[in-house]
């Protein structure tokens, strides 16, 4: 992991920019892979990335991991409650409140839902977060992106990141292949 950490700097060409954030509209957002910051739980660790404030307007981190055998094989991600349950928000904070109903999203050939949250951190501060749950047969791909301040472009940024060639390659490999 460490060699990958030091070597891996994923440059995502956001050539079309990210609506809603002046900084995020910059042509290139640079995501740097960081160590998985959470203790071991029911699923193996995933991958974590950081985008600097200079590139993304606010410092943004995104955590991505597959959950094998954790999805309704037929129905996929059913509703917003399922995003609340599975999207790993609780790794960051046990106290999170959805800000609005979520929406259907697609990444590569996976469909699912995304929802925006307010996270109350242990020090009393509040973070903005986006939870994403995507289904692939009977498996899930979950991602959660967080920023210290409100980040209206967070969902777009996170989905763009997940849809990058590098990430979709890894995601599909982690889910058993294309």
């Amino acid at each position, binding site marked *: 992991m460490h060699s990958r950490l030091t070597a891996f700097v994923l440059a995502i060409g956001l050539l079309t920019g990210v609506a809603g954030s002046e900084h995020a509209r910059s042509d290139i957002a640079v995501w740097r892979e960081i160590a998985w910051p959470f203790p*071991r*739980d*029911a*699923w193996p660790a995933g991958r974590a990335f950081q985008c600097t404030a200079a590139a993304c307007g606010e410092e943004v981190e995104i955590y991505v991991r597959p959950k*094998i*055998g954790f999805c*309704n*094989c*037929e*129905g996929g991600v*059913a509703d917003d*409650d399922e995003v*609340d*349950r599975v999207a790993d*928000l*609780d790794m960051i*904070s*046990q*106290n*999170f*409140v*959805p800000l609005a109903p979520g929406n259907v999203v697609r990444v590569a050939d996976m469909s699912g839902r995304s929802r925006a949250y307010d996270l109350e951190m242990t020090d009393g501060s509040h973070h903005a977060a986006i939870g994403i749950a995507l289904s692939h*047969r009977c498996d899930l791909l979950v991602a959660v992106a967080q920023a210290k301040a409100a980040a209206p472009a967070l969902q777009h940024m996170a989905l763009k990141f997940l849809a990058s060639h590098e990430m979709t390659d890894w995601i*599909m490999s982690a*889910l*058993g*292949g*294309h």
Partner: protein
Amino acid sequence: MTGRVELTACLGIVLVAVCGLACAQPQVIGAPPEASNMKLVGTNDLQARSAYQPTIHHQGDRWIAYIGHHGGTDDIPDPLNPITGKAEPNGTSIVDVTDPAHPGYLRHIPGQEGKYEGGGAQMVRICDGKSLPKGDPDAVYMLRTFGSEAHEIWNVADPANPVLVTRLGGLKDTHKSFWECDTGIAFLVSGAPDWRTRRMTQVYDLSDPAHPEKIRDFGLPGQEPGATGAVPTELHGPISTGPQGNRVYFGYGTDKGGLLQIVDRDKLIHGPKQPTPDNLRYPEISRLAMSAFNGAHTTFPMPQMPIAEFAHDKDGNTRDIVMIVDEAIVNECGEPRQMVWFADVTVENRPMMISSYTVAEASGSFCERGGRFGSHSANESMAKVFYKKMAFIAFFNAGVRALDIRDPYHPHEVGYFIPSITASTDKRCVTVEGKDRCKVAIQTNNVETDERGYIYIVDRANTGLHILELTGAARAVAGLP
């Protein structure tokens, strides 16, 4: 039998004979079952439907098996019912097992349309009308799920001609419920639409099955409507010890983040009912949190077990034990091992895990056989023939395992039976480099026993029902002649 089939069968027999259980050979059609201290008595193919929970009921002078089914498969969503000549979505099979050597298929009641866990009628419990406080004494009631959307009660007094009595619908999921036949109180595993979890508990008074009365909704704080933040893991199923024992043992989680919750039954039924966090905590006595690696599919209570090793101890020579069975859900060992755990809950606010059991993977190279390997469920009959002496564990491709649990601090296997596959046995696949790699293997899903000492196992991969009996040392453990 064609020459090719004969050749395959012979090859299979030779392979089994030469390798025993040590080789990683796939199961082949025609090979004999693998067994130790357990013997096949009879079979029924259950119309090649994926089977979940069997319940065996002594009904007059007959013995009837009621067997819940998962939904159909991609290849055959609605298998043919030869009795009606129609393709029917998987539901409930009713089989006369009075003569266990010659089970007679009586009736298939269709379930919810849908494949795998998206349809069918997985769960089934039976109560005689004469035992229910307000039941029709001539009726025999079957409580079953209808896929994910409803619970149903049928009168199966004539098991070949069941009649629908009641339907409790409008749910987003269901699962393995529990019904007290002497009080009528039912703990229904439901997905109430406004709760934040797929599976929680709806407590009902079903003492008069024609007129169900809801008592309350129940779950873990954080699952209730309007809650925010982390959502606790979902319910799998409860088992109650009734008014005398006054405990309900709830198992949460399936293969991850398991939790045994010990609940005061009286406080649950008669306590404040609004689903507030305080009210949900009120009846809870304690919890035993398991590793994140394991879930709690079945939480089977065995109170007041005498422990031979402790017989001369001045205190603590009987123990309250709960057997916890995890469910494996990923094919070919794609997850941490799911197995069986024994918890000593004598001191209820300090429940402690005391022992575990798993099939030795190397004894059959089970990770390579195909399908799931690991535990799923246990027999739930409390008939004295096996209760507190033996437990039977469905272990997917390792068949059923007979455990001597008389000393729950040191449970050990005394027998096993892995059925032969048949032409109906469905494949199980994993994705390797983007392509499906499929194998055909037994997937013993659930097990139940009857008062006569027969063991009934059913297969998730469509191989049907196998009725077994103990032999040799295992028979001696149960005290059977």
